[in-house]
Every structure is written in C-alpha cells, then in structure tokens.
C-alpha cells in the first residue's frame, strides 16, 4: 500500500473502462446503422453473461471446501425464490453458522 497506483493495474483499468464504454455506446451505434443480426450470433451473444459468470461460480463451489460447497447449494435453493440481496444474506448466515458452530 505504499503507492496509490500501479502501472499495470492502471492500464488494465483504463482498457477495461474503454471496453465498457464501447459496450454502452456500441449497441446504439450498431442498431442505428444496421437492422439484422444472424440468429445464431444473437443466440451466442445472448448466452455470454450466463456462460462467463458460471465459470466464476462452479470452480469456487467445487474447490472451496465442504463449507463453501454446502453454502453454495443452500444459496442456490434460496436464489430460486429470493432476490439477490436476501440470497446473499442466507449464504452469509449459513457459512458463518458452519464455521463458528459446526466446525467449532
């Protein structure tokens, strides 16, 4: 924590910010110039968020230890019914109970 910024981190943030801004204006620019997207390309794009985000969930649920796996399973069930914030609360309560009352 001796410096405010690191050069490589700064570059990644700058590139990430530009990439993000391009997604925010890209659709508008694209749609006001073109009318049609191939259906399979659209299906592939449509799957991007779930496909990317799942890769951050599944390995954590499998390799994080049994307390994490069990917590994720309970949170999954909760997430079928609850919104994001209550789901987080359920998961947090479960993992805290497991770590402080079950493990000891």
């Amino acid at each position, binding site marked *: 924590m001796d410096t405010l910024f690191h050069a490589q981190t700064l570059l*990644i943030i700058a590139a990430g910010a530009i*990439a993000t801004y391009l997604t925010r204006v890209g659709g508008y620019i694209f749609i006001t110039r073109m009318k049609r997207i191939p259906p399979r390309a659209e299906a*592939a794009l*449509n799957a991007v968020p*779930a496909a990317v985000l799942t*890769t951050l969930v599944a390995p954590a*649920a499998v390799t994080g230890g049994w307390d994490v796996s069990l917590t994720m399973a309970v949170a999954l069930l909760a997430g079928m019914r609850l919104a994001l914030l209550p789901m987080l609360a359920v998961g947090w309560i479960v993992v805290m109970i497991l770590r402080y009352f079950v493990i000891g």
Partner: protein
Amino acid sequence: MTPATKEEIRDAFRRGIAVAIAAAPFAVLFGAVAIDNSLTIAEAALMSATLYAGASQLVGVELFNHNVAPWLVVLSIFAVNFRHVLYSAAIAPHIRHLSFFEKATSLFLLTDPQFAETERRGDAGIRVTYIWSMVLGLSVYVPWLCLTVVGGFLGNLIGDPRSIGIDVLLPIYFMGLVLGFRSRANWLPVVIASGAGSILALHFVGSPWHVSLGALAGIAVAALLPLDAKEAEAPIGDVIEGEA
C-alpha cells in the same frame, strides 16, 4: 426551471436513490474485495469511477488476484459488460432526440437499472430527457463511488475475509446474477456446459484459462443448439433441480 423539469428531477432522484440503496452493499463489497485482492483504495475508486459496472468490476478484481494475463482481464470485463450493447440498442428509439454530447454522456451511465427505468419511461410514452437521465444516473453513480471508498477502508480493517464470511459472498453474488438470466433461451444447457467446462479446464489446464474455456463451452452450446429448444429444456431442468 419549469415545474415540469422540477418534477422530472424529483422523479429521477427518487428512483436513483432506491437503486443506490439496493446497490450499496455491492459497492462496499467491491471496495473490500478490491483491497483484499491487493488493489489500492485509489485504484478501486478509479475502477468504480471509470467502469461503473458492478459485476464486471468484481470479475476484474477477482481475476487480478489470479495473476491472469492483462488482456484476459480486459476481455472478461468486456464479456461481462456485453449486455450493455443490447441495452443501448434497445433504448435507441428513446434517446435518439438527444444531441451527440448528451448521448455520449448519458450512455456512460447506462447500467441494468438505468436501462430498465429508461425503457419503462420511454414505453410509457414519456419523453426521456437529458436532465432526467443524468439525475437518475448520477444519483446512483455518486453513492456507488463513495461507498467503494468506504468498503476499501473497511477492507483494510477486516483482515482474513474467511473469518467474517466475505469469501463466499462473491461466488454467491455471481450465482445470483447467473440465476437472474434463467429466463433466457437455453439457459440451463449453457450453464451446465460452462460449469462443467470451467471445472474440467481448471483441473486439466489450470487457472486462468478455465474462465475463457468454460465460457467458450457455454457460448458454443448456445450457438449450436436448435434456436427454439423449449422441449429439450424441460427434462434436463427436472434432473438438475432434483440434484440440487
């Protein structure tokens, strides 16, 4: 200022603050996780100020910690934010009347709730003005930025994230986001392919490639499946719910 403009500002501010309250834990979470993943508070604040997209910020920060190649971090941020392409395409009819500068600035503030509110206002036949968009966007943006810094300072105090259960919040948050897309076509096959693909890739190839390889598996499945696969989805769904 006309009474109509005042009413617009009041409406936008009220909606914006509601979003800001719902997003507040994630701003704090982002700040804390960023510090935990060895970013500085200044870097976390800069990320909130320039990306201003919660899920991608958390994804980016998570990958920082895995010593992932920089281009892959940027690509992942881009991939997570790709939905904004669809958002800005969808609201195009509502914002077409704005000037170039107004579009360029208000689109910077385009987020999931900003999209939803704009779409709703436009569909109701109410003109989406520049002042309304900016008040709505900024009343989410400013708290997001401030709470990132608050989270950063808390992160410095927290120490071991496992001891207060912070380490599971991020995977659960991402799982919640994944569940949020569950009404989309072929959602379950995509999630199964990505999940299995990423676990296998983690085992046989290693981090960080499991992210891109797993995502690729899910995207390929979506592109290759029949475009209208409603019947194929139901039986798979039953099996998985039974397992869970």
